[in-house]
């Protein structure tokens, strides 16, 4: 009871929720074409709109959903699809481990339910928020639910109207996903050191993608970037900042 009062005072608040919604809002324009594209491709593979909705709601991870479509065949190779999904989503382990200490006062229930919708964009915006202050559950929910609803509406709409839309790459919409992620990456830009991290992870990812089948390139790139950051670590410049943080 007593801890509950404490937490709700920090976590609740429509302002934080609304801030989450507005922070996500520009991404609606990126997620919608990607969702339409996914729905259209899923329809071509013979998925019904309800099946598209079920996959979007339960899996809610765009990259692995596209990967699954890539592998979709008759008979359905469910084991290959499930394992590839697990592999491509292994990055979520790093993502949740990175975000978990920055959450502020979340209850265990909020953590375990909330992380069900920890998609790339939700996580990236929560991380950016955490650079200023702890990410509240309300903010997280504002970001997450906006993407969740956008994704389900767009994918189901895409599966219904996909046939008449034609080839989305004609309008450059296949690049929207890449452009979105580049913008998210640049949100973390802090100068030359970030450049070295990005160069290392980009190079490792490209090479691994070229020579190793499957989704290992994401793990390889992440590890290379992390190593680049560890090598560049310097005690002194961060020392002042560290002690300032410790005092808070």
């Amino acid at each position, binding site marked *: 009871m007593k801890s509950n009062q404490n937490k709700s005072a920090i976590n609740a608040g429509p302002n934080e929720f609304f801030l989450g919604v507005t922070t996500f809002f*520009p*991404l609606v324009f990126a997620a919608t074409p990607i969702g339409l594209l996914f729905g259209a491709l899923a329809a071509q593979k013979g998925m*019904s709109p*309800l*099946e598209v909705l079920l*996959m979007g709601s339960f*899996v809610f991870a765009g990259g692995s959903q596209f990967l699954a479509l890539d592998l979709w065949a008759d008979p359905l190779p*469910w084991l290959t*699809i499930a*394992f590839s*999904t*697990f592999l491509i*989503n*292994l*990055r*979520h*382990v*790093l*993502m949740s*481990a*990175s*975000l*978990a*200490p920055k959450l502020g006062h979340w209850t265990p229930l909020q*953590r375990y339910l909330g*992380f069900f919708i920890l998609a790339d964009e939700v*996580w*990236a915006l929560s991380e950016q928020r955490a650079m200023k202050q702890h990410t509240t559950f309300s903010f997280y929910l504002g970001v997450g639910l906006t993407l969740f609803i956008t994704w389900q509406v767009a994918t189901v709409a895409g599966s219904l109207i996909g046939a008449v839309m034609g080839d989305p790459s004609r*309008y*450059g919409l296949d690049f929207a*996903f*890449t*452009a*979105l992620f*580049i*913008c*998210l*990456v640049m949100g*973390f*830009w802090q100068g030359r050191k970030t450049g070295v*991290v*990005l160069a290392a*992870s*980009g*190079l490792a*990812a*490209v090479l691994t*993608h*070229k020579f190793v089948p499957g989704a290992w*390139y*994401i793990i390889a*790139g*992440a590890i290379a*970037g*992390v190593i*680049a*950051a*560890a090598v560049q*670590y310097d005690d002194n410049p*961060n020392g002042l900042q560290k002690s300032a943080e410790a005092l808070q």
Partner: protein
Amino acid sequence: MTSEIFAVDPLVLFTILAMAAGTYLTRIAGLVLTKFVTFSGRTEAALQAVPPAILMSVVAPTAFATGIAETAATAITAVAALRLPMLAAMTIGVVSVVVLRMALAVI
């Protein structure tokens, strides 16, 4: 028509649930991990790099190994993202990839 919209194949449903189970496992794994491990100093600096490194890895094959148009558009998007709001930078990126693809097709 309505029956087609609401059709759910049992094997498709099973595949979706298998995908969902694996995905949820990876999403909560970090919550469990951080209970047992604490990070500081160099390790913390390394973990700070996780977000940009992962995002970079996801897009790198498309951004740098698809074609000249995609690579150039990636660079344009990145520069634009440093100065402009996200939506504007994304629009510039998508428009530039279309223009570059058309220009390269002509050449």
